[in-house]
Structure formats: structure tokens, C-alpha cells
């Protein structure tokens, strides 16, 4: 045992030495660049000194993994930076790591995460904990590819992440819109539902042929939010849900979300295995894809603008799959981002990577090879670049871009999402008999 302990000590000392970081230089570069005192060439020079960048991203997609290794890594190497792509099982793992290191006193330049692919509550958590690097995004050279003017409604997707102001602390990477797919070999066009009532009517005829991803996974949260928008008792859809937790009273929120949650509760017996009393809610998008491929469910709702085109090319979707508009007018549209945490060890290299990721070249390549929608704004591009992006798209299957645009809705404020998912878990998953107002009030307390 003694040997073990002394060995432990020796190793600890060796590695602590190796983990030495150039803290003042990291902080000086960050502050100088964000304040506009240093220009981009200083960032590039510093990035070469750092020499590496640790990108943490959800690694469940083979196509994206291949793209990272075969396209992004060489592009970074050309700039003198070694890309270290870390595939995580859930984005929350990377966020937890940042916070754990921050709580252990690892500050600027001393952590291990440089860049995270993130959006929604994971970003809100980082912001709330003060674990953001700073407002770098609008200072990047490729910020010109995005709309930042707050007077333009379309800029909201770049300025707010699930309603939370980003203040340039994260760079938009991909655009998404929630949509559903159907296997046209199993369901006739006339039977495809386009709103929540029609979905229920369909399930009464075909019980068990639908389910949605389980909250708190963001794909599940989004389905719940869409149901809440559609059942908004005031008929104002997404509008009241743009406020943050401090702007809306618990009683008011409870009143607004109650009809949607009542609907979801009434849907439970009609979901997959719902007749047995314990409906099957899949854990994530891979799991729901499996149910859809096997014909256990008729409709597959998730983010994935080009999900069908991609699923057909990789064999994860059944032949005959196509997209359809559901639910009318409340299909949540948002962006996902690349965020730099406050204790990033290679902040300059992270900015160089974030900048490259928002170039026309990389966006077109990502669109074509991974099927991930463009995150830059086509109206900010010149004609050649806009055409390149348009022609790289794998294409929608069964719906038009106009239909997708016409039915888009903004996502829910991330601080409210926390309350909504907690309420779903309590009211639907744990069958808490208390009134929704009481459950919401409880969730408010824990959220604050």
C-alpha cells in the first residue's frame, strides 16, 4: 500500500509540472482581442504557439466523425494547429468537465476544453456559472457571413440561443428546424397528421404507433415545447415563451403550459407501449431512428433538416421515408453554436477553429458531406458563395423550403425550458397528482 501511495505522489508531481500553462499570455490575448486592441494576425500567431485545440462534440454520428478527422483536422494542420477532436456521449459531459475544473480553481488557460458544440440549456448553464471566454464571435473575420444587426428579425437566431442573449460568446455553427418524417410505404398521404389533434385522431385508429424522445433530452423538450405553443390558451403561440424566468410569474407560466401538458398526458395511453401503462420514450435521436426503421412507430420527430436524405444514404432510415409539416406553424427553428469556455487552454486556437468553421468553404463541405444545415446567413454572402451553399445541400425530401420557412417558430427561452422539462418529468413521468401550478412553483424554486 505504501508503495502505491508514494507512487501516486511522484506521478502527481510529474503531471502537475507538465500541466503548466502560460496564464498571463492567454488572458492578455483574450482581453486585447475582444477589446479590439489586437488584430486577427495576433490571434493566428498565438494559435500557432498554442499548437493544438481540444474540440468537444457529440460523437454519435459516424459521418460527422469522419468529416472532423478528414476535413477539419487537415484544415487546422494547415494553420499550424493540431485538432484534437474529443467525442462525448452527451454535450453535458463537456459542460460538467468545464465546471468541475472551474470549481477546482482552474482559470484562464488552465482547463482542458477549448471549444464545445452546444446550444440551449448547456449554454445557459455555462453563462449562468460565469464559465464563458468572452464576446469573441463578432470580432472573427468570418463574422461577416452572419447577420448581427438587432433591427433585423433574422439576426435573432445569432444573438439569442434559446432566448438567452449570447453577446457574441458563441459562434453560430449550424441551423436546424424540428420536423417529422413518415414512412410513406406504411402510411397513406391522406392519413398524415399536420397538427396535434390530427395526430391524436390518427393514434386512436392506430394506437401505439408514435412516441417522442424523452425529456430532458433537448429533442424531447422541443416536442413538448411545440405541444405547449400549439395549445397556448391565449392563441399567441411562441410569443410569451420568449421571456426569461425572471420576467414571467410561475402562475402565469403554469396557466400557459397547462393545456399542452394536459394534451401530452392524454396522449400517453396512445403512445408506443402506452396501452400497458408505461409508454416507451426513446432516450435520444439514435434510439428513435431505430424504432422508426423497424416500423414500431409511424412518425419520427426530431431536429434534422436533411435527416431523411442522410438517413437514406446511411441505411438508418427505411426506404420510402419522407418529411412532412408537423405541427403547422410551430416547427421550432434554431441554431447551434461553438462556445469557448472561460478556462480554455488554447483560446486563440479555439477562435481560429471557430472562424474556420463559419467560412463558406467549411459550411459547404459540412452540408454536403455531413448533411448538417448551413449556420451562416445566405443573404450576407455574394452570389457565388450563396449558390455554392445551395448546391451543396443534400435536399429536403417531401417538403419544400418555403413550407419549412412558413411554419417556423422560435425556440423557448432556455431558463423556461428548465422549468418545462422539470414539470414534464414530474407531471407525466412520475405521475405527480398535484396541480400543474404547484409543480411549476416547485420547479421555479429549484431553478433559482
Amino acid at each position, binding site marked *: 500500500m505504501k508503495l502505491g501511495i508514494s507512487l501516486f505522489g511522484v506521478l502527481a508531481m510529474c503531471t502537475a509540472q507538465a500541466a503548466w500553462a502560460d496564464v498571463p499570455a492567454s488572458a492578455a490575448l483574450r482581453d486585447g482581442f475582444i477589446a479590439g486592441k489586437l488584430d486577427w494576425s495576433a490571434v493566428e500567431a498565438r494559435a500557432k504557439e498554442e499548437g493544438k485545440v481540444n474540440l468537444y462534440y457529440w460523437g*454519435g454520428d459516424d459521418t460527422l466523425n469522419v468529416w472532423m478527422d478528414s476535413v477539419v483536422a487537415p484544415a487546422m494542420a494547415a494553420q499550424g494547429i493540431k485538432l484534437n477532436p474529443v467525442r462525448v456521449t452527451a454535450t453535458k459531459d463537456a459542460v460538467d468537465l468545464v465546471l468541475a475544473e472551474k470549481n477546482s480553481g482552474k482559470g484562464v488557460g488552465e482547463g482542458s476544453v477549448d471549444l464545445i458544440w452546444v446550444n440551449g440549456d448547456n449554454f445557459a448553464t455555462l453563462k449562468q456559472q460565469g464559465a464563458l471566454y468572452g464576446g469573441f464571435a463578432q470580432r472573427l473575420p468570418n463574422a461577416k457571413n452572419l447577420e448581427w444587426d438587432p433591427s433585423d428579425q433574422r439576426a435573432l437566431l445569432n444573438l439569442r440561443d434559446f432566448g438567452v442573449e449570447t453577446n457574441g460568446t458563441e459562434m453560430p455553427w449550424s441551423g436546424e428546424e424540428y420536423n417529422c418524417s413518415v414512412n410513406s410505404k406504411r402510411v397513406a398521404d391522406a392519413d398524415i397528421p399536420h397538427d396535434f389533434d390530427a395526430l391524436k385522431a390518427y393514434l386512436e385508429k392506430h394506437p401505439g404507433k408514435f412516441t417522442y424522445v424523452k425529456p430532458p433530452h433537448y429533442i424531447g423538450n422541443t416536442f413538448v415545447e411545440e405541444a405547449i405553443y400549439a395549445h397556448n390558451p391565449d392563441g399567441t403561440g411562441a410569443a410569451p415563451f420568449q421571456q426569461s424566468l425572471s420576467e414571467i410569474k410561475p402562475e402565469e407560466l403554469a396557466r400557459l403550459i397547462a393545456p399542452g401538458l394536459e394534451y401530452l398526458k392524454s396522449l400517453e395511453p396512445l403512445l408506443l407501449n402506452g396501452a400497458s401503462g408505461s409508454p416507451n420514450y426513446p432516450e435520444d435521436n*439514435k434510439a428513435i431512428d431505430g424504432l422508426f426503421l423497424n416500423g414500431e412507430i409511424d412518425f419520427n420527430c426530431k431536429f434534422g433538416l436533411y435527416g431523411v436524405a442522410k438517413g437514406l444514404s446511411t441505411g438508418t432510415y427505411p*426506404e420510402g421515408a419522407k418529411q412532412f409539416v408537423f405541427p403547422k406553424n410551430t416547427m421550432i427553428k434554431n441554431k447551434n453554436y461553438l462556445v469557448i469556455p472561460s478556462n480554455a487552454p488554447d483560446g486563440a486556437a479555439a477562435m481560429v477553429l471557430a472562424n474556420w468553421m463559419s467560412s463558406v468553404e467549411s459550411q459547404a463541405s459540412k452540408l454536403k458531406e455531413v448533411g448538417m444545415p448551413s449556420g451562416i446567413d445566405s443573404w450576407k454572402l455574394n452570389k457565388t458563395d450563396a449558390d455554392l451553399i445551395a448546391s451543396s445541400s443534400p435536399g429536403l425530401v417531401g417538403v419544400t423550403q418555403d413550407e419549412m420557412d412558413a411554419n417556423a417558430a422560435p425556440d423557448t427561452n432556455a431558463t423556461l425550458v428548465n422549468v418545462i422539462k422539470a414539470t414534464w418529468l414530474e407531471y407525466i413521468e412520475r405521475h405527480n397528482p398535484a396541480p400543474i401550478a404547484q409543480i411549476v412553483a416547485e420547479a421555479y424554486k429549484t431553478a433559482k
Partner: protein
Amino acid sequence: MARREDIALTSRLSPFQRIYLLLIAGFIVGPFLPLIIQSLAFRWAWPDLMPGTWWMQQRGKSAIPLAWDYVLSPYSHIWEAAINTVAIGTTVTAICLVICLPAARVLARERFRGKGAFEFFLSLPLIVPEAAIGMALLMIFIRLGLAGSFFGIVIAHLIPTIPYMVRMLTAVYQGLGKDFEEQAMILGARPMQILFRVTLPMLLPGVVAGALFTFLVSTNIFLLTFFLGQGKIITLPTLLFAKISGGTLDASAAGITLVVTLPGIVLLLITERFIKEEAFGKGFGN
């Protein structure tokens, strides 16, 4: 000699015993069959008994490497994970032996105050949930700068492996008895000679079994590796978990699963013969 015994043994099996053996074999081999088929499929949907489209039919048509092409490509990171797994397993086994051999000798032969409590203390890591150990260790390791490092993981792996190894080696020492060593001493052997000529050869089968077990445990630890590796150090279990966490097994996940079983199978095949002959042949001098 051995072969004749085998034949004699099988011919004596009753029909019930044969069915029983077949069932066991079925349970062990059975799960591999759908895995192998899935790893060769492009699209395999219910209720098809066999994949509707095979990987070979789509090979070259898809933009990315599919199924085994992906698994064996550098993109899957499987070689990196395999090398890490074997390197960590070997290091853990070696350190574990160095720590446990002297400890087991004392536990088997000496009596001292608080021995019972000490033995209980040794098995504590098996009782405390791995997640609790992992979280606490992570906070400590981050401060020490050990998180995300090779040696951090090795140290973490020692926690659940030492209790097993100590127990196995203690049993071996107890079975050995002091007599042989005393005999050698009486015949004039020096301490070093006794260690290398008498004690170690007689302990060897137990040591090999313990080392094999430690190696297998180490190569299967997911949670501690995941926490302390911080995703930077990938091993076969963390790679596999990332692939199958959704509960859906696609072709590349099935392929990776098959590869993950390989080190264990290879090791068992190599050592099985060795342990059998050593342990039951000469080990205890029967």
C-alpha cells in the same frame, strides 16, 4: 494422454448433460450471431429475418465508409482505443501484482491486530459505487493535474482491481503453506533462491490467474475511465459506450462490439492451456 481422457469423458455424458452443454454453448455463442450479421448489414429492419440491404451492396455508393470499412478506418479511433486499453491493462496488472504479492503473503501467514478490519477495508472499493468514487477522484485529480492522463486512469483502475487480486493471491498463499520454503531453507537455499526457485514457481498458476482476472477487469472498466479520462483518453469500453448509448446497434457499432470482445477471447485462449497445465499439472506437486 489428455485426448484419450477427453474421449472417455464425452462418451460418458448422458443425453441430459449433452443438451445442457449445448444450451450453455448456445447462451455463450448465441448473442454473437446477430452481432455478426448486423455488422455486415446496411439496412436491417424488423420483421426481416436477414438484412434487406447488405453493406457490400452499398459499398462505394455512400460518401462515408460504412460498417467494417468505418470500424477498421482511422476515423473509428478503434486502434487508438485498443492500444490504450491493452497498455492500461498491462500497467495496472503489473502495479497491482507489485502491491498485492507482499500484502497477500502477510495476510495469509501472519496474525496482527486489526487484521479482520483491514481485510474488510480492502474490500470496501467493491462495495462503494464506482460513480461515487469517480466523482470524488475527479475533483482530487483535477487539482493534482492527473485528470485526463494515462497514469490517472491507471491509479483509478487499481482501486477496483486490488481487492480482487489480494483475495486471489491470499488464497494461493494459504494453499501453499510454509513447509516447502522451510524445507528449502533446511537444505541450505538462500532467501533469493527460495523466492525464485520455490515460492514463485509454485505461486505462478495463481499469479497468472490473478493477473488475467485483473487485466480483464481493467479492460472492462467504463465509468472510472470515462470520468477520469475526460474523453481525452479513449479505451474500448468508452468507445463502445459512446456508440451504443442510444440503445440502437448499427453496423459500425456491431463491428466495434465484436472488436471489443477480442482482447478477452485472445487472452483466455492463450492462458487457458497454461493455467490448466500449470495449476493442475505441476503447480501443487500432485
